[in-house]
């Protein structure tokens, strides 16, 4: 079984620069590492997309994702990617849809379960997220894919921020988690300061630091899943900022 990041709880693998370019590298180590980055960044939105767009059962969607990544690696699907024509994210989705369409056509010819499970992916968590997000509310499968991709990038980046703060700056992540990741009514800075025994100015400084660090991490993750500076700028614009 290939050892790649299957859930967001694991560390996100890193490459030197773009994994989109690295996946086509002649260096086997670099190629392997780049594939790990692409799988970690895309498997979850891809799985949700197959479930929503193709109304696939869990088993069919799992098979589709496993076989897609397997064939993409073997057949170098992404070698044809031209950053001048589309974002890698869009190209990826089109390749995935083509692969699933072929699989649907071939369904009558081969038994389900033909794909060998080679990636350790946490499909339970993806299904749980899909149920929570409410697929029926999405306007289109493309928007669903984009939204889940954004969610996945931020989930990975927040995990990386948590890991970065584990070296004695845990309070920075605690403040960020309690303020920015709060689902209900946000606590005031004064309440956070009182709870943590810190001056209010320290709370706001830590929060500001965490946001800057998160932005840096998000941009570095985007750098890995884009092909060049133009696509990076485009995806940064797309990803950051509320609509």
């Amino acid at each position: 079984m290939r050892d790649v990041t299957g859930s967001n709880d694991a560390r996100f693998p890193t490459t030197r620069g773009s994994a989109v370019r690295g996946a086509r590298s002649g260096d086997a180590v670099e190629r392997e590492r780049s594939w790990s980055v692409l799988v970690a960044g895309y498997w979850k939105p891809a799985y949700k997309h197959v479930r929503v767009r193709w109304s696939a059962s869990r088993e069919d969607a799992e098979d589709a994702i496993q076989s897609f990544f397997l064939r993409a690696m073997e057949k170098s699907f992404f070698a044809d990617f031209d950053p001048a024509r589309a974002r890698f994210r869009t190209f990826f989705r089109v390749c995935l849809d083509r692969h699933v369409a072929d699989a649907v056509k071939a369904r009558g010819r081969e038994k389900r379960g033909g794909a060998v499970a080679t990636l350790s992916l946490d499909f339970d968590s993806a299904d749980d997220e899909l149920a929570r997000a409410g697929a029926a509310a999405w306007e289109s499968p493309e928007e669903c894919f984009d939204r889940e991709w954004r969610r996945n990038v931020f989930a990975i980046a927040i995990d990386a921020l948590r890991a970065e703060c584990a070296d004695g700056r845990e309070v920075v992540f605690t403040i960020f988690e309690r303020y920015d990741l709060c689902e209900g009514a946000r606590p005031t800075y004064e309440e956070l300061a009182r709870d943590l025994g810190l001056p209010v100015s320290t709370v706001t400084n830590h929060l500001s630091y965490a946001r800057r660090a998160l932005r840096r991490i998000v941009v570095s993750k985007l750098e890995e899943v884009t092909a060049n500076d133009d696509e990076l700028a485009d995806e940064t614009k797309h990803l950051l900022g509320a609509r």
Partner: protein
Amino acid sequence: MWIPDAVLDHVREVTDEPDLSATKYRIVRALGRGGMGAVFAAHDAELDREVAIKVSTGARASGDLCERLRAEARVIARLEHPGIVPVHDVGVLPDGRVYYVMKLVRGERLDEWARGRDVRVVLRSFRRICEAVSFAHAHGVVHRDLKPENVMVGAFGEALVMDWGIAADASRPDPAVAVAVAGTPAYMAPEQARGDVDARADVYSLGAVLSFLVGRDAPKPLASIVRRATAERADDRYASAADLAEDVGRYLDVEPVRAHRESITERVARFATRHRVILSLVGAYVLLRVLMFVFAR
């Protein structure tokens, strides 16, 4: 980890907020987001005043968007005109994004401001827009994205032309800008779509803005002005934004406009409108004399 939609939107927003801690500015609120960057209202702690800050959305200082934002700031800084918002400062944030500081314009966008307003008041502001654009042309700058959304109108009808992000600057030709097809299709000159742009492309856009302002039922002379400004061939348009402004001025002064050949009826109607006070006085005098004649009998 699971991130609910509301939390995701919040995190995306705060992550994009520029870090101005090393500057004298503090973010007050977000104003808007365009193709090249986001604009925030900010407080200048030293001068104790509100300003507007545009921050690039590019990820790095060397990125194309950052360079374009710098170029935009330089273009605006060169164009000191009451109809062009002044730039105060340019800088780079710790994360590499470029920002520039400008006057905070208090007013309404032209399309919102013009709604339901007297057409003559709107035309006077339109002339000011033409004058600002003409000033830019005299300095070798073509805006390339003139539209109602890119003009702000202040409390006294003063018009400010905004968003010079894709302007072509003849003094600093940028091959990337020169060939790039940029602009808003509804307001874009046909030749602009081919990347072939000079000041007459802005004349076309001004004509399209005028068309938006006066609507479909515009009087014939105004409709003729729109037609000439938005002619398919650049050679058939007004030669400059100043010429367009002059013709709109003629319409406001009830003089014959160059773009329109008047019929006899139109000429008489215009004469009557222009001299309506004198004609009213003469009419009243004649009526008085008639009444006096009738009652004297």
